[in-house]
C-alpha cells in the first residue's frame, strides 16, 4: 500500500482548483480527469501526460463541484451561483442547465447506475435528486429538524444542518450527506426516507465516501481534523483517525477498499491504512490546501489525483 508521485501540473488553472473527478473511459475515449476551479472554468485532462483536452467556460463564479456519469459520456459542473451545467463530455454540448430553487449547490454525485444525480443543497438542509433521463427534479431528501426547534422556522437549528457533502452507497440504495454541525444523515433512496444520523464529528463534514467493497462502510472527513469510519447501517462510529493538522477537505476510498486517501488544509495528501488506524504516507508536494482527492476506479489500475489551492493538479500511482 503506497503512493508513488507520477506527475504534477503547476498552473493547471489560473486560480485555486476546488473540485476533481474521474470521467470513466468509454469505447471512444480513455478515462479523463475533470477539474473545476475558482477561475470559473472546468477543464478536462488526459492523465497520461496531463495534457489539456478542453476548457469549458460559462460559469459566473467559482466552480465548487464536478461530477461524472458512470457511463463516461455525461458530466456536470456546478458553481457558486447555483447553476448546474450538465454537458456531453465528448462534444461539450450543454445537455441541461439545472437551476436549483433558491438554495446553493455544494457537492453532487451521480448514482452508481447513472439514473439519478444527487445535489447536496446548502441551507435547505436537503439533497435534491434529479432524474438523468429527463433532467427533472424527482425527489428532495430533507434532513428532519431536530425536535423542539420546529417552533421557529428561522431559528438556527436548521441553519446548522447546512449540507456540504453527499455520497451514494456502491449499491445505490443509500445516500449519505454531511452537514455543517458535524452530523451525517443517511437516507434510504428507494423509499425517499431519512434513516438516521451518524454522530461523531463536531465540525463541518466536507467530504464523504463509501467503501466500494462494502456498502456498510462510510468514510468521512471533517474540519475537526479527523477521518471517521462508520458502520452506516449499524450507525456506529468504529474508527477515528487523526493526523492532519488542519481541516480534512476531501476523502476517497481506494477501489480495493484497503486504503483511504485524504486532502487537507495542512497542504498534504495522506494515505491511510484503516486497519492500522494511521497514516502510512504523507505527500507534501502541494503548497496550499488540497481541496480534492480522487481515486480512478477504472480498469487501468489505480491512479490518484489531487487538486489544490496552489492551482496545481498532481497524479500518483497507488499500489
Amino acid at each position, binding site marked *: 500500500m503506497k503512493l508513488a508521485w507520477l506527475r504534477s501540473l503547476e498552473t493547471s488553472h489560473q486560480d485555486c482548483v476546488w473540485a476533481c473527478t474521474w470521467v470513466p473511459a468509454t469505447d471512444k475515449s480513455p478515462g479523463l480527469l475533470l477539474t473545476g476551479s475558482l477561475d470559473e472554468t472546468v477543464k478536462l485532462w488526459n492523465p497520461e501526460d496531463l495534457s489539456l483536452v478542453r476548457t469549458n467556460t460559462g460559469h*459566473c463564479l467559482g466552480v465548487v463541484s464536478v461530477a461524472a456519469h458512470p457511463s463516461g459520456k455525461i458530466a456536470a459542473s456546478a458553481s457558486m451561483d447555483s447553476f448546474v451545467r450538465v454537458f456531453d463530455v465528448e462534444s461539450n454540448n450543454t445537455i441541461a442547465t439545472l437551476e436549483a430553487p433558491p438554495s*446553493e449547490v455544494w457537492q453532487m454525485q451521480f448514482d452508481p447506475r447513472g439514473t439519478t444525480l444527487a445535489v447536496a443543497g*446548502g441551507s435547505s438542509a436537503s439533497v435534491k435528486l434529479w432524474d438523468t433521463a429527463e433532467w427533472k427534479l424527482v425527489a428532495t431528501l430533507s434532513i428532519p429538524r431536530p425536535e423542539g426547534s420546529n417552533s421557529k422556522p428561522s431559528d438556527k437549528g436548521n441553519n446548522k444542518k447546512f449540507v456540504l457533502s453527499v455520497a451514494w452507497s456502491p449499491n445505490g440504495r443509500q445516500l449519505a450527506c454531511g452537514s455543517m454541525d458535524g452530523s451525517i444523515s443517511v437516507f434510504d433512496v428507494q423509499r425517499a426516507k431519512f434513516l438516521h444520523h451518524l*454522530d*461523531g464529528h463536531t465540525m463541518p463534514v466536507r467530504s464523504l465516501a463509501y467503501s466500494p467493497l462494502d456498502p456498510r462502510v462510510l468514510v468521512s472527513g471533517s474540519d475537526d481534523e*479527523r477521518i471517521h469510519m462508520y458502520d452506516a447501517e449499524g450507525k*456506529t462510529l468504529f474508527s477515528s483517525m487523526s493526523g492532519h493538522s488542519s481541516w480534512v477537505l476531501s476523502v476517497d476510498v481506494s477501489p480495493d477498499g484497503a486504503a483511504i486517501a485524504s486532502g487537507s488544509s495542512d497542504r498534504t495528501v495522506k494515505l491511510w491504512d484503516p486497519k492500522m488506524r494511521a497514516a502510512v504516507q504523507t505527500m507534501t508536494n502541494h503548497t496550499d490546501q488540497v481541496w480534492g482527492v480522487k481515486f480512478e476506479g477504472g480498469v487501468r489500475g489505480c491512479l490518484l489525483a489531487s487538486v489544490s489551492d496552489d492551482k496545481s493538479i498532481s497524479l500518483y500511482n497507488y499500489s
Partner: protein
Amino acid sequence: MAEEMDSQEDPVFTQLTEAVAANPDDPSLHFNLGLFLWEGIGSESKEKAAEHFVIAAKLNPQDANAFRYLGHYYSKVSVDTQRALKCYQRALTLDPQDSESGESMCDLLDKEGKESLEVAVCREAAGKSPRAFWAFRRLGFLQVHQKKWSEAVHNLQQAIRGYPTSADLWEALGLAYQRLSMFTAAIKSYGRAIELEESRVFAMVESGYVFLMLGSHRKGVEQFQQALQISPENVAAHYGLGCGLLELSKECISSGAFRWGASILEEASKVVKTGTFLAKNVSCMWKLHGDIQLTYANCIPWIDEDHVLETEKALADSILSWKNACSSAALSARRSYQHALHLAPWQANIYTDIAITIDVINYFKEEKKHDPIQKQLPEKMILGGLLLESSNNEFWVALGCLSHHVELKQHAFIRSLQLDVSLAVAWAYLGKVDLTLSKSPNFFLLSMKLWLNVDFLQLYRKQGDKKLAQNAFDRARSIDPSLALPWAGIALKADEAYDCCLRAVQILPLPEFQMGLAKLALLSGELSSSEVFGPISQALHHAPQYPESHNLLGLVCEARCDYPSAITSYKLARYALNTSSRDASKLLDISINLARSLCKDGKAYEAVQECEELKKKGVLDREGLHIYALSSWQLGKNDQALSVVRILAAGVKSLEPQKASTSISFICRLLYYISGQEAVMTSILKMPKDLFKSSKVSFVVSAIHVLDQSNQLEAVVSSSRSSLISHEEITGMHFLIVLSKLVKNGSEHCLGIQSGIDHLRKILHKYPNSYFLRNVLGYLLISSKEQKDAHLSTRCFTVRSSQSECRKEKGLKCAPEILGASTVACYTNNKHTFPTCKDQSTPQHGSLKLLQKWWHQEPWNKNARYLLILNYIQKAREERYPQHINTGLEKLITLALSDESLSCPYQKFQLSLCASEISLQSGDHMNCIKHAKNASNLSIPDDYLFFAHLQLCRAYAAENNHVSLHEEYTKCINLRTDYHIGLICLKYIECQYGLQGDENINIIELRFEECSKDIKYSWNVWTAVWKMVQGLIAVSNRDFVGAEEFFAYACSLNGSESCLFLCHGAICMELARQQCNSDFLLLAVGSLKKARDNCYASLPILQLLLGQAEASLGYKGQWSQYLKFEWSSWPPEMRPGEIFLHMHLVSKQLQEGGYSASRTIHGKNPLRWILQAIHLNPSCSRYWKALQNS
C-alpha cells in the same frame, strides 16, 4: 440377424472383403476390415474383427492400432485380462502416446488393484515420450491419490499442456499446490478449474479455505456462498462459510463495529446450525457453532436508542433483557461445546472452551456468580483440559485467568512461561497479578472490571511491587506490541497514559479500556475528541450496567456541546447507580453534572430543581452553588441568586487562588447582571485587592471599568493588570482598552474612533505580530468616516491563505470580512476609468476571488455571501452590467433576500438596493421600483433610508414619471442624511430633471452645510467634490465663468485630486477659446501641470490638453512629446478616434518638417492614422476633411 447380415453386405463391406481377398498379405486392408467389423454389433462380428486384427498384427508387428483393438477384444469380448494386458503393453511400446490403450490398460490394472504396476506403466510411457499426456495425467492423479504432492505437481503441469481445458486436472493441481502450501498458486489453479466448469464445488470449497488461510475472509466467504448455491447440502462449504463469517465478524468487532459484527454472527450461526443438522456427528461443526455463539454473546450491543428510557425500571429492564440475550447465546454456546465434547472427548481445548463459556455465563447471570459450585466449575473444566495436555501453555494461561486463588494464578502463569518464555499474554497477566498481590487480594475483582480506574492508578503508584509489574508489562510489550493489555498496563506508569490507553483501545475495544480512556481524557483535556467519543459510546454497548459508563458518555457529550444527549446520559447514569450500589459521592457527582448540563442547555428550571434537591440533602458543594446561582438568575429569581452569591462570597477567602479567581469573576459578572454597574463597583471596591490578582478576574473588572464613565475602578484595574502574563492576554487587554477609549472619548452619538485608532497604532508597534490587533485596527479604520482611512485599512492587515487558521483567532471581525468591507468602501477600478489620486490604493482585484474562497470555505456564512454580493456588484459595475453577471447576481441576491435568518436589517436594505440597481441596469423598472420600495419600508435610520428614496428617484427618472420623481425628491430632502455623497447625487438629479422649485432653492446646499462636521480631515475633500459638482452643473448650464470659479475653489480645497485640476484646466481652455484670453491659457497650463504631478497613473486627455494649451501659447516643440504620452495613457481598446486624428496631424507635420528619419510614433504612415480614425467614427466630418487635406 438377417438384417444385420444384410447390412454387412453393404457396398463398403463387400468392397473391403474383396480388397482383402485380392491382397491377403496387406495388413492395412485386414485392419480396415477388422475395424469395420468391430464397429458392428454383436459378439460374432467382434470375433470376426479380432481374427482380422490378429492377421494384421502378424503381418505387421509394428502396428500399434491392431494391438490396441486386440487388447479391447480381450478385455471386453473374450475376457482374458492377461492377454489384453499384453496386447496393450505391445501397443504402448509401439506408440507411447496412444492414450486409448494406455487408459484401458491402466483401468484394467486398477480393477485388479495393481497400483504400482499402473504407476510403472505410466512412468514408462511418460519416460518414452514427453507428449504421452495421458500418462502424465494418469500419473498425476495417482500421485495425488498417493499424496506425493510435489511429484504430482510436475506431472499434472505436464498433463495440462496436453489437456489445457480439463477442469479435473486443474482441480488436482490446485489441491497439490494447496497441500504444498503454495497458496496463491493453488488459488489460481482452482480459479481456472471453476472458470472452465462453473459447477466445480470442490474447487470452490477448497479455494475458499485457502482464502481463509490467507486472511482474505471476504473472498473466502464468496466462494463458499457460491458452492452452497450449487450444492446446498455440502457440509464442508457450510463449515467454511461459518468459519469465514466468524473471522469477518471478528474483524468488525476488533474495529469496534459491534452491531455489524453481531449481524454477521447471526448469519453465521444460521449457516452452521444447518451444518449441524446435515452432519450431526461432526465434532468440529459443533465446536464452530459454539465459537460463533460465544463470540456473539460477547458482542451483542446493548441497544438503547430506539426508545428513550425514562425510568429506572425501564433501564433495568432493558439491561436485563440485554443480559438475557447475551447469556442465552452463551448457554447455546455451552450446549454446542458439550455436543462437540461428547463426540470427541479427547479434545482438550473444548474443556477450556466450556470453562470460558461458563465464566461468561456467570458474568451475565449475577445469581450464579454466588453459587460456589458454579464458581468452581470453570477451574475444574480447565483442569480437565490440563489433564489431557499438561504441556499446553495456553491452558495454563486460561487457568491463571479463571482461577480465584491468587497463588494458583501466579503459579499458572509462571508454569506457562516455563513452557514458553516468549508468551506475551502470560507476561502481561503476571504483571497484573503482581500488581494485585501487593494490595489486598479482594481488590482484584474490582480491578479486573475497572482496573484502569484512575483512583486505582494513583493507589498503585506507591506500591513496592510496582517495579516488578512494570518489568513484566515491558517484557510483554517487547514480545508482542499488538497486545492491548500491556499497553493498558503501561498506562499505570506516566503521563503518556492517554496515548497508551488510546492505542490499547484501538487494538482491543474492551469496555474497561474504553472507560479508562475516557477517564484519562478527562484529565488530559481531550474529552471532546472523537477518539474518545467513539470508544465511550461503544463502551455503553457492553457495559450499560455501570453508572460510570453513562456518566463518562455524558461528560464527553457535554464537552462536545451536545447537552441534550449529556442530560439523557447523566439521567441514565443515575438510574444505573440507583439500581446498583447507591454510592453517595458518585451520586453527588452525577447530579452536579446533570445540573450543569441542564443549565448549559438552557433548562434553568430543572437545573434549579436539581440543585435544590441536593441542597435538601445538604451536599451542595461549590460547583453546585455556582450552577444554583446562575440558573436561579436565568429563571429571574434574583433574590435567591443573590443569597447564593453571598454564600459563595463568604467562602472565597478559604479557597486556593485558582478556584477563588473563578468564583470572584463569577460573582462579579452575576452581580453586574443582577444589581447593575454601580452595585458591582461598590462590591468590588469593598473586596480585598489581592483577590483580583488573576488574569480572569482582571478581564472581568476591566470590562466593567470600560463601561464606567467615572473611572472609579482605575486603581483596582491597574493593580489587577499586573497578573497578565501571556502575549494573548496582553493583546486581549489592549483590545479592552481600545474599547474603553472608544466609549469614553466619544460623543453622545458617536464613538471616539480616532482615539481608538491612535492607541492601536501605538500598541501595534509593540506587538507587530498580533493578527488580532491588526484586524481590530482594520475594522476601526473602515468605521472611521475619514476618507483616507478606508484606503489604509486594507494595508494594515493580511489575509492568510488558509481560512482554517483565521478561524482559530477569535476577534471582533475576521480578516476577509474586513477586507471585503474595505474594498467596498474604498472602491476604485481601473478598467474603464482612471485613478486620479495618489492616496487611492491599488485596485483590489483579488478581493472578489478572496471572498469566493472565503465563502467556499464557510458556505453557511451569511456575511461572506453578503460581502461577495457587494463585491460582485462592483465587478458588474466595472464591466457595465453585462447580462450574464446580472443573471447570476440577481439569483444570488434573491437567495440572500429570501433567507429568513438574515437578521441585520441594514444588510437586507443594502441587498434590496443592489437588487433594485441590477433591475434598473437591465431595464426592468417595475422590479427596480419594487425592490427600492421594499428597502424604503425597512426600519433603519433615516440616514440610510435616504438612499432608498434616492434610488426611487433614479427609477422614476428612468421611467419618466415626473410626478413620483418629485415626490421622492421631496422625501429625500425631508429625510436628510449625513452622507455627503447622497446629497451630491441628489443635487445631480435635481439639476438634471429641473426639480429645483422656488421654495427649496439651495436647500440641498444648506443640508450639505449641516452635514456632520465631526470629520476633520475629509471635510475639505467632500466640499471640493461638492464644488466640482456645482461646477459641472454650471458647465451644463453653459455658465463657464461660474464653473471656473467653482473648480478653482474645489482645487484650492483639495490639492491632491488631479481630476479637479483637470476640470479646471479644461474649463480655462474653453474660456480662453471663447474670450481669446491668454491669461486663462496660463491658468490652464498651471492646473493641468498640477493635475499631471498629482496623478497616480497617466490620465488620458490631460496630456492632450496640456499640449494644446502650450501649443496655443506658442511652445510647439513639446507637442509631439505630449501626444506620445497621451497615446500611451489610453488602453488600446479604448482609444477614441480623436486621438488618431491628432496622431495623424502630428505625424503629417513631422513628415513635412523633414523629420522623416524619426518616422513618428510606431513608424506609421500619416494616412493610416486618419484612416483608423475614420474607421472608428465614420460620422465625423472633420476626419474626412483631414483625409482630403492629406
